[in-house]
């Protein structure tokens, strides 16, 4: 590098690069045809260099896409070579050998040339509502045995060559997916976002010149790395461990899926070792991803800072081949992200002793209660599909209660479907969307409350009740706090008196059935007996905590007229403390 860059130019470029990725995201979201993009924000937009290094990425979408496009560029460069890309090329790919996610996640990318030199790629990964096979909606379930059953596989194909559409490929895609008007509309939106980025990048290069921009990017990477190191440096050196488990993998129902994190802090270096997580499964919850480690590291080192290649240079992630998160093709990956929020939370939990003032208790830990009901309306003969993601409770914090009913740590600006919007488009009644009393773990700071969403179907249709549960390892408490309640699907068909636990995908239910989509609560933080009795009283009045739970878990006595009995509370709390093993 010749002369040092002046601070003004550096700052302007630093602001401009994330702004481009965010503008791509805004454009994609507003023009997309499927709620996985405009509500669930299941996409990412990014600029990468030909080495596969992340220059900038949008903020606010699904967090587990963080910095995971590099492998695709490295692979693409290997296939095509630097000279194999031409202006006007558009590449489409979703192949699991490299991408390591479910096939619904379609990556579109275009090369950017400045004076005939390949300098960047603009990329958009987005969840298509269908890629054939069993992929409709949120994606095929855990029970889908391999990628061929899952859907259409596209392996680094040029859908446009120098601006010329490959009609054959286009027809193959169109004829092998269920909602072509939606997905091909999304393809259009993804390409438009890439082109937009191309124009913005071009403006930047023309203004500041090639050398200045490339130099600035290197400096930005270095500075980002230094910021992360500054945070890690303040943590005590040592080895931190924690573990958790999913009830099962969705296929083998009697065998839990172990999750384990070992974090080594040494100076400003951090190693996250996930080797002791389950080996690859014969169920679709495998993946090839560093997302678990990276989302946790990002949340701890600079949650509000933009993401780039420097964000993870001071992090070493260890996941051996054959691990559930480093599965080998053709291991099934249809539910690839299922375990990731729990992995993130396990890493965060391990570090609680290192950062006691910043680490909350466990959150519901799943990708939300997914509401997926679909079918064909008998009157209009139109297909319908409801998709909504319902949040659960977050853990109590070192200084306040956890947030209720919010999406997982792997989901950012992911929004539930409004009841009015769902009912406008689909033949159902949402009878209830309600906080569930006593679902938050007891603690000095209570865990956030989980939800029940009750749906009545007005025509026959099919439900997806496939979801990994955490009943054996519910959202944990910290420092003496209690665990939160866990998630579930319940179903009551016409003529039945009670709700029963529901399983299975594509389960046909008759008219007028009621399904409950239940999300977990957060764990409590600290000893429940230390919770301010007034706060417990307020929770009882608000019907977030029952009188029984106030007495049994918090030692707070509240009379049937909802008045607080302070002397009885003091006595009961003494008694409960005395009864504990010391």
């Amino acid at each position, binding site marked *: 590098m010749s002369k040092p860059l002046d601070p*003004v130019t550096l700052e302007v470029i630093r602001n401009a690069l994330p702004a481009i990725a965010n503008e791509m995201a805004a454009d994609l979201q507003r023009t997309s*045809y499927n709620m996985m993009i405009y509500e669930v924000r299941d996409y990412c937009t990014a600029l990468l260099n030909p080495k596969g290094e992340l220059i900038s990425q949008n903020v*606010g979408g699904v967090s587990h896409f963080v910095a995971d496009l590099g492998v695709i560029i490295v692979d693409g460069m290997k296939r095509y070579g630097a000279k194999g890309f031409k202006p006007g090329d558009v590449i489409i790919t979703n192949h699991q050998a490299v991408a390591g996610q479910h096939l619904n996640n379609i990556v579109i990318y275009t090369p950017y040339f400045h004076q005939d030199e390949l300098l960047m790629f603009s990329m958009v990964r987005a969840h298509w509502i269908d890629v054939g096979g069993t992929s409709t909606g949120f994606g095929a379930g855990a029970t889908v045995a391999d990628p061929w059953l899952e859907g259409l596989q596209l392996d680094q194909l040029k859908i446009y060559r120098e601006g010329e559409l490959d009609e054959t490929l286009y027809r193959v895609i169109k004829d092998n997916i269920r909602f072509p008007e939606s997905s091909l509309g999304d393809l259009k939106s993804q390409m*438009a976002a890439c082109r937009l980025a191309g124009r913005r990048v071009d403006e930047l290069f023309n203004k500041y010149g090639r050398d200045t921009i490339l130099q600035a990017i290197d400096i930005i990477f270095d500075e980002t790395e230094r910021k992360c190191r500054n945070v890690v440096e303040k943590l005590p050196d040592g080895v931190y461990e924690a573990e958790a488990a999913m009830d099962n993998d969705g296929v083998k129902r009697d065998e839990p899926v172990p999750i384990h994190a070992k974090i080594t802090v040494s100076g400003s270096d951090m190693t996250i070792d996930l080797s002791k997580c389950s080996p690859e499964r014969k169920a679709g919850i495998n993946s090839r991803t560093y997302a678990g480690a990276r989302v946790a590291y990002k949340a701890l080192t600079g949650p509000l800072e933009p993401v780039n290649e420097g964000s993870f240079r001071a992090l070493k992630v260890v996941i051996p081949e054959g691990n559930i998160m480093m599965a080998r093709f053709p291991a099934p990956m249809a539910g690839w992200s299922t375990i990731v929020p729990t992995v993130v939370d396990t890493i965060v939990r391990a570090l609680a002793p290192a950062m006691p003032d910043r680490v909350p208790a466990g959150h519901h830990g799943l990708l939300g209660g997914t509401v997926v009901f679909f079918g064909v309306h008998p009157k209009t003969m139109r297909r319908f599909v409801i998709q909504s993601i319902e949040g659960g409770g977050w853990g109590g914090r070192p200084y306040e209660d956890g947030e209720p*009913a919010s999406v997982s740590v792997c989901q*950012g600006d992911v*929004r539930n479907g409004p009841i009015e919007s769902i009912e406008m488009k689909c033949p159902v*009644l949402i009878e209830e969307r309600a*906080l569930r009393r006593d679902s938050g773990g007891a603690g000095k700071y209570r865990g956030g409350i989980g*939800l029940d969403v009750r749906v009545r179907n007005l025509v026959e249709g099919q439900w997806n009740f496939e979801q990994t549960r955490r009943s054996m390892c519910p959202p944990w408490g910290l420092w003496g706090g209690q665990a939160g309640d866990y998630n579930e699907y319940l179903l009551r068909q016409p003529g039945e008196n009670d709700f029963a636990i529901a399983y299975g995908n594509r389960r046909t239910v008759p008219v007028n059935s009621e399904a409950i989509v239940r999300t977990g609560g957060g764990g409590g933080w600290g000893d429940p007996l230390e919770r301010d009795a007034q706060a417990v009283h307020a929770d009882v009045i608000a019907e977030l905590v029952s009188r029984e739970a106030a007495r049994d878990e918090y030692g707070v006595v509240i009379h049937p007229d909802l008045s607080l009995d302070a002397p009885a509370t003091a006595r009961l709390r003494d008694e409960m403390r005395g009864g504990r093993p010391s």
Partner: protein
Amino acid sequence: MIVVAIDIGGTFTDLIGFDAEQNRFVEAKSLTTPSQLTRGIIDCIRKSGLDAGAIDELIHGSTIAINTLIERKGARTGLIVTRGTRDVYIIGRGNRPEAYNLLFHKHRPLVDRHLSREAQERLLASGDVHEKLQAASIEDACEKLKAAGVEAVAVSFLHSYANPEHERQAGAIVRAALPGTYVSLSHEILREYREFERTSTTVVNAYIGPKVGGYVKSLKQDLGAVGFDGDLAIMRSNGGVMTPEVATDRPVAMMESGPVGGIIASARVGQALGFANVISFDMGGTTAKASLIRDGEPTMAPGYYVGGYASGHPVMLPMIDVVEVGAGGGSIAWIDEIGALKVGPQSAGADPGPICYRGGGTEPTITDANVVLGRLDPDNFLGGQMKLDSEGAARGINEKIAAPLKMGLTAAAQAILDISVSTMSLAVREVSVKKGFDPRDFVLVAAGGAGPLHIAAVARELHVPKVIVPLFPSHFSALGMLLADERHDFIRTFYGDLTGIDFAALVTTHAEMVREATSGLRHKDSAEQQIHLDLRYVGQEFTLQVPVTLEQLKSADRQGIRQAFDALYEHRYAHHSPDEPVEMVNIRLAVIGKRPRLQFPSLTACASAKPVRERQVYLSDPAKPVACPVYDRPSLGAGARIAGPALVQEHGTTTVLFEHDACEVAPSGELVITIGDAA
């Protein structure tokens, strides 16, 4: 005829009046008295020398609505909702826009959960009754809310946008059971689908209602007591004004009225000078705000989040679209942990203020950088009433910025300005480029105390060729209020495929909306309408607002409407899909009651401009100052021409012209600046 506008800001209450007979402006300022806002208003009128009894019309803008919410000083509020939806308002959309933040917050509800009660009733999306409203359930809710001492009640039922009957019935029961309680029904506040956003908007209205309603009432009384018997109008977020009666019913409509006056004024000033397309740029002490005006009309946003998108309260009422960035005169320059120079968003505000204000400020600000570069004259700030500490400013920049970055003093000051100009430019880009407009096709109008200082640099950065510095740039918001029309915006959800829409029913709905809108209008005779349809391709969620005429609705012009949508889509996103089916979601109506136009005085022509002095100022080159003539703005006559480099000083601000910039004074007094070919 005497028209007066009074704008209550955080620090000062501003008055600007225009006496049409005498053809003159009147200005006055007094300190805002937060505990007794109306006193500041009466003080201001007294100071202005105007006879309150002679004022024909008084337009008032106030931050009371937004402050009541932000400071959470509103009424104890109850909420009545459809069975099963008690928690919809608490849950919101379940999202976490700060994706990696483990300690995020969603909005903090304004209603306690135990004050949220369910009614036995249910409508379908079609508006058909699925379960009749049981009056007993409302009576029961009222009893509980009464016992809890609520002062306001919001009612929000599912699908009330399609059929408001249940809400009306419930409202009647609540009003009878809880006399004196402030009641807001969701369909009266916002008749649009999406229950969380509509409920939030209604709750905000109820929460601030008693306080704001009381304020409007006491304002009328206090004004009456000093002899005022003209028309009172209240400024609202959509750029129009409303009667005190409408303001009392829908106080939420005035929530974001703060920046609106300046934007209206920008539109009018631009039009008067023959520029229908302008970008209003207002820079004050803590932020800079940009807003785009096309064909003389400000652009509207369909809603906003009070307190920010991540953790704020959604209010889905139309407001003038403003993008705000943390770059104001008081924005602090600092060096972050890795040694990068940053400016803002922290601001020294008015207290302690920039170092040069001598108010105890210790952090270098944008204003301090301007003093160091000689662009602000320490001896002539606010007409010389306040002597600035240029040595302190230099010391602060040297110690905090120049030394750590190993830069010279003036280079550091210039770097602070360059970074803030790039931030400000992002705001202008956001309202233009991002919406598909090229800023080079627009004229920038600079307002606020710091706007004219930086506008030429911002224009250069964006290649904007022309800039206007209006009269009264530091009182611009109040000036805009003098010019605002009455305006009511209404929305109705009306859902269906464009090919199947029942246009006869749509015309009936439109007529109902017109009746509702005009009933609150003072200037009925001059009223104009704007109709928009919210359209999208089937399968999409976000809509575009497509302007249509009443004739198009009456003649069911599906094809014309469709083409207009495709064209708008193409303009906005650079592609469109003529074969995809299109659906309609909402109809929007704006009814605008035109107030009489004021004819402002012109300046006497005087083509020669004489500088009052010359000063050494750092402009393009921080290493070398240039000799810069300084002009006194009040001395400039119409037609006067000034060539840059130059400074034009007036009471509240200074306009900076760079080398090659050329300025001409318009007959009506504005500075019209052509940015030099350096651009």
